[in-house]
């Protein structure tokens, strides 16, 4: 007899799954998260539940998603996500529901707000500033023409002598 199997290829090119491994260890048994009895019968609904869970932080863990956490609280949240999905909520509604209860802290990808604007803009800003600096340095060098200083009168005479002399 073959047991019930639920299987899916993980979505998208996510470099590294969002999991803080460390607290998991402190939370005793690090044996993986989603339990067979939690899995929904409808594969598309289950797929959505997994995708949502991967973006939600296990609140008692370090940077680990509820999809990978063993903590009882993570299990409660996973069941809650599935309950909302079964009730017909959209993905967005499920996430909003959880955030309304547990706060922004639960999102592994912080929403763009006034508090996180700097976080999201920092990298593009650094890139732009660095590009600007490089461009300025390049222009200054070019204008300065260091190393390519025009020959002095004496050097010109010497060069002329050398060329004519040969």
């Amino acid at each position: 007899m073959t047991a019930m199997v639920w299987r899916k290829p993980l979505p998208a090119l996510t470099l590294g799954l969002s999991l803080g491994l460390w607290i998991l260890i402190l939370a005793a048994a690090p044996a993986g998260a989603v339990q067979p009895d939690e899995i929904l019968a409808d594969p598309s609904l289950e797929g959505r539940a997994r995708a949502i869970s991967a973006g939600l932080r296990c609140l008692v863990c370090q940077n680990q998603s509820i999809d990978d956490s063993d903590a009882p609280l993570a299990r409660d949240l996973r069941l809650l996500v599935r309950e909302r999905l079964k009730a017909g909520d959209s993905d967005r509604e499920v996430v909003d529901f959880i955030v309304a209860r547990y706060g922004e802290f639960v999102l592994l990808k912080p929403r763009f707000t006034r508090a996180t604007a700097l976080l999201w803009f920092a990298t593009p800003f650094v890139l732009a500033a660095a590009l600007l600096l490089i461009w300025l340095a390049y222009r200054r060098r070019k204008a300065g023409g260091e190393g390519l200083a025009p020959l002095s009168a004496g050097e010109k005479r010497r060069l002329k002598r050398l060329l004519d002399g040969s």
Partner: protein
Amino acid sequence: MIAETGHYALILALAVAIVQTVLPLLGARMRDPQLAAVAVPAAQMQFVLVAIAFIALTTAYVTSDFSVENVWRNSHSAKPLIYKISGVWGNHEGSMVLWVLILALFGASVAIYGVNLPRQLKANVLAVQGSIAAAFLLFIITASNPFVRLDPAPFDGEGLNPVLQDPALAFHPPFLYAGYVGFSMAFSFAIAALIDGRIDAAWARWVRPWTLAAWMCLTLGVAMGSWWAYYELGWGGFWFWDPVENASFMPWLAGTALLHSALVMEKRDALKVWTILLAIVTFSLSLMGTFLVRSGVLTSVHAFAVDPARGIFILAIMSVFIGGSLALFAWRAPLLGQGGLFAPISREGALVLNNLLLTTACAAVFVGTLYPLALEALTGDKISVGAPFFNLTFTPLIVPLLIAVPFGPLLAWKRGDLVAAAQRLMAAAAVAIGVAMLLLAVHHRGPWLAPFGVGLGLWLILGAVSEIAYRVKLTEAAPAEIWRRLRNLPRAAYGSALAHAGVGLTVIGIVATTAWRSEAIVALKPGNTAEIAGYELTFKGVAPNQGPNYRERIGVFAVTRNGRAITELLPSKREFTVEKSDTTEAGIHASWRGDLYAVLGDSLNDGAYSVRLYFNPLVRLIWLGALVMFAGGAVSLSDRRLRVGAPMRGRTKAAAVAAGE
């Protein structure tokens, strides 16, 4: 007595470190060669003393001397010998001693092997090294002494955190620290150059081997950590963007940039000011890594220290060194002057692009790691920054860098020809794009970016091969000529090609396993069979077993493929009796296609066990790539041109060859 000897040696080492800092600095300043020369014996003495302390601590661990508090807290008499030894650095106090030991080792190496260094530079370099050692020794002696005694001595120890009792993790910290601390050499050389107000191509030639050695160790250290996470933590993930991982990744990114900018400085005398700054930044990030992990700022398994006084001490050390060096930089860097000119399209230009993207990527990791801490400290708001953030900010910077990598070595210094370089890479590009298209056709249901990721990895590998092929004129010259060229090609060229190909392997591994991983979560009773990725796993049941210091339950799975027996997987759950915690040991079967990975979960009611199965395609390429990068570094390091003093001999030899021809 042994512990007291170690303690005393640390105090003597601190005294020597202060001498090593003050006298050579004065000597270099007053142009007194004898005073400056004190640096050499001081650095050697310092290493001997710290080594005595380290050996004393190791002896206390090996002999299970529980009258030493540190041993009592982190060891147990029933622990296997290897974990008694690795327990020395598996805790806060001991790991700081290891840190200083490696620092002293680098200092002593410069003292011994730096015979060709200008006297003044050498004195200043060793003085800066001495000052770092003095700061950390002071920290160890006053705030984190590993030699504190207990009276009466407890009967047995409390044991080591079970997840640290693992071969890869036993050697992960020494490599990581060798990387962190190795960058102190680049830092000391940078500060010495700033003190001197003078810097030239020779400086870069002296700095590069040390930086390269540090980079190699850090590469291996980071890879080991990732490998450990993969097989030990039980869900087959290999990188988690955890703050502790980021703390080791940032110096790696900055160090990689430093290696490349030092190359420009050595060859073209350009990017001087930037290289100095990068050397300071790289070591500052290493210090920050130590601070993040050691201070307990991040509550994690690495943060053994929860004492805030220690955190403040390390923060003070960090502020003094980072602030001081940046102030010195602002004051003295204008003296260093500009270097050679180059066109935007040139080898230098390519390396500037490398530095731009690597440092910006490093900044992205920096912001993502520290922003939640800063926000919470300033406003009390708590946010999480996880993998989705890094995927959005880090990846877009790294992908263009990787696309550009094969072009770099094919461009000439000063002014390069992009079209000619592109022509030489035609074959590599054609194969990479072809394979990507083929994969796209096979996996047409997505994820559609993944085939291009694999193509990118291939592009890096084939690009590296193309560069060597071009350099030896593979398509034009006669076989004898090709052979002669292959032999005469500098080892550094092979080294960089290998390292770039290693990056390609890692990229393929990451992309393939992330995109095409399969997973099955099943409840199995003995006798049941589950299928994954063409394998059939039959659950035979669970057997108990007694390890040296743990009890375990081993799940037995017979693996077949198309009815043919392949192997038996034995994932287990270990229960460490002394430490009262559990670990999971995954059962892994490696093949050239990928890893079959099984994890035994909890027993459910009705006699079934929850079992998680994964198939991780090509996942081993991630670490194989890191090994290849390490090998590339080693090959490059063996190039005599990189060795201190060798360039002169090299030149005379080249001249002799030229004269002979």
